[in-house]
């Protein structure tokens, strides 16, 4: 039982950290949100770097501007790039990490050495990784001439980070439609899930949600809600078109760096599975592969989830890897973190940079906050 005095002392111990977090995290987040609703740097009459610059409140104009203005196509490109980068980075890290962990689970000789080797890239900073991979992925050197030097084959003809190819093309104007289909599919799966478990109320809500989204889609409301782009003719040329092949090099570098981390988490998870479960499965006649597929992998679900969360929020905020590998001026690999830097410190458009930063914060919160909430509920 804690006495009152103990609780007061405990609170006082935590108080400095609390104050620091309130000021330096939440206070500055509030300031960023406030800046994003001002016109600091967008008003030609007010020099942005003056000592007494006058900032006026303009509401959500900066957000509208970055989504619709013709000259802000970099931001829309960065959203598409982040989406594809996140998917391939997270899936890549999970798959590679899982494979490595399963291999190391086989009681090989020198397991400790291999574990260290695989974990080592994580100790490097993203800048070092980016610089190394930039040299390796030079169009006229590095990996491209390896087949020629080793086997006498033709050198690889791919520009890596300098490539302008686009894979998986899509139309930017159709994005809300795709998102709607995707959302309907997810909810439909959940509805079927609830129905099979007998949770009829929840499945009814799900069906209602699907009907509403379908109606919105068919009424063409998305065309009005999805802000119409200025200068549609030019935008059609420069809007995001798909998965920029230039991202492939960056994904490889990022997976190389972080798969050791997922491998370590999986090893810990696999080791945490009691041996009795495996013994029981073997007694029941399960093959080794069957053991992995039916016993080990399902037990790893919480680890997969937490790895996805951590990797997801790294990829949403990525800046230094892209800066080191592709530079700040490469339009095929632009990400929101880079844009905050470019718009803020090169063009002195601080309000717009804050708007981009707030949007990044929003995306990361969408991932992290539900996860934290579910963790807290579990503990209680």
């Amino acid at each position: 039982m804690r006495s009152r005095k103990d609780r007061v002392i405990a609170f006082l111990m935590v108080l400095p950290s609390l104050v620091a977090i309130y000021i330096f995290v939440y206070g500055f987040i509030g300031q960023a949100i406030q800046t994003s609703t001002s016109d600091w740097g967008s008003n030609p009459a007010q020099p942005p770097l003056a000592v007494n610059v006058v900032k006026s409140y303009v509401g959500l104009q900066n957000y509208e501007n970055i989504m619709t203005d013709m000259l802000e196509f970099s931001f829309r490109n960065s959203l598409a790039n982040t989406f594809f980068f996140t998917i391939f980075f997270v899936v890549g890290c999970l798959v590679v990490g899982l494979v490595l962990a399963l291999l190391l689970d086989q009681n090989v000789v020198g397991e400790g050495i291999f574990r260290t080797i695989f974990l080592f890239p994580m100790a490097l900073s993203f800048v070092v990784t980016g610089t190394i991979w930039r040299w390796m992925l030079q169009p006229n050197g590095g990996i491209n001439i390896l087949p020629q030097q080793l086997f006498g084959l033709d050198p690889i003809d791919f520009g890596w980070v300098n490539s302008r190819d686009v894979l998986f093309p899509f139309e930017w104007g159709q994005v809300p439609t795709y998102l709607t289909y995707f959302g309907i599919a997810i909810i439909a799966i959940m509805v079927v899930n609830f129905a099979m478990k007998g949770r009829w109320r929840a499945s009814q809500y799900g069906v209602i949600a699907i009907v509403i989204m379908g109606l919105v889609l068919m009424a063409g409301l998305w065309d009005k809600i999805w802000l119409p782009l200025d200068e549609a003719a030019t935008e059609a040329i420069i809007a995001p078109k798909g998965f920029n092949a230039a991202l492939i090099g960056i994904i490889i570098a990022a997976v190389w760096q972080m798969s050791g981390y997922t491998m370590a988490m999986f090893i810990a998870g696999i080791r945490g599975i009691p041996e009795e479960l495996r013994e029981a499965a073997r007694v029941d006649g399960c093959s080794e592969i069957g053991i992995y597929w039916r016993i080990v992998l399902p037990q790893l679900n919480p680890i997969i989830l937490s790895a996805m969360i951590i990797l997801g929020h790294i990829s949403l905020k990525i800046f230094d890897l892209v800066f080191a590998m592709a530079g700040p001026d490469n339009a095929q690999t632009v990400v929101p973190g880079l844009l905050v830097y470019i718009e803020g410190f090169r063009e002195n458009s601080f309000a717009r940079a804050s708007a981009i930063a707030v949007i990044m914060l929003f995306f990361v919160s969408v991932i992290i906050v539900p996860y934290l909430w579910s963790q807290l509920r579990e503990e209680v």
Partner: protein
Amino acid sequence: MKSRLSLLLVLGLLATLVGGVISAQDTSGELEIFSWWAGDEGPALEALLELYATENPDVEVINATVTGGSGVNARAVLKTRMLGGDPPDSFQVHAGEELTGTWVVADRMEDLTFLYEEQGWFEAFPQDLIDLLTYEGGIYSVPVNIHRSNVMWSNPAKLEEWGFEAPATWDDFLALCPTIQEAGVVPLVVGEAWTQNHLFESVALGVLGADGWNGIWSGETDPAGPEMVAVFETFGKVLECSNISDDASGLSWQQAIDKVIAGEAAFNIMGDWAAGYMTTTLGLEPGVGYGYNAAPGTDGIFMWLSDSFGLPADAPNRDNTIAWLTTLGSLEGQNTFNPLKGSIPARVDAVSAAPDLYNAYLQSASADWAENTLVGSLVHGAAANERFMGDFNQVMEIFLASGSAEATANAMSVVCIQSGACGGM
């Protein structure tokens, strides 16, 4: 006993902290120079700092540089420092709109008219230059050097071997292009993004001429009109004769020059800091190891940019900084810095005072500086403010992605309006 020892320990640490803080505030006797002259351009700055040190022996000089060609990274660092209230004593900035549009209108720079009058600089610098450095009657920086932007570099030995000559206009270049490509050589080598912008301004100057170019910034040339569309169309054709789709994005400007020297490329458009690189770092002789011409279509026009230093209004060591600016604008200072940098002095009397210091290229550039029509560079901060320069990157990307000259010219018109850089638009 134990608690008393720990108390003494804490007090001792506190005392050290406080002492450290107090002594850190004692900054008189220091001079912090902020620039982007690292790497190949470093030796010239160091020579200048040594000259300053001999004249002011009891000042500790701090050489704070941030690498990145044309200051692309240094400016960001400078802004965080200025906004954070920690200005360097003096910082390198391109003379013209980059200084005026960012810092002077923000009331962050001190008027240097008193220093100009004291040192007699109103007579030493050309009047065109003084006009551009003046904003609303005050003058805010001291130009150290003049660089030329519209220069075409080549390797004379290789050109003779291939049988080409430097083209006189961009149409001549485009006609020569297939012949060069057949020889297995890249006709024009470009590097990363800012060097492509650099190429653009030479193309624009070659197509529009000096009056047309100046007209963009005064509002007389319509950025969405047929002349600009013609500029972008020519630029597109020039890029087809370059390595833009090959390895351009990964090359620094030095690496692009290296390709010309090595004989892998025929021509490169770069400012004449390339002369400093080739003379000082590569050890080549001007006219022999490397050749220089005015960029096609720009003979008789000198597109200038100038590195200059100013006096921030709240510089920590104002007297030391004024001594630094005095050194910069003096005959000896300019003749110490410029031969190593590969630029010509801004002072009109400097080269004639010590002609032996300047190699053949610099002598010819200095003669051009005196006789040619002078126009300001866009990419290097003389002609347009930072907002325009930043958005101009978007315009270039629109061109590279779409290939459409009309769309790009329209975009340029929008950028003109949003940044207010096109005089009265």
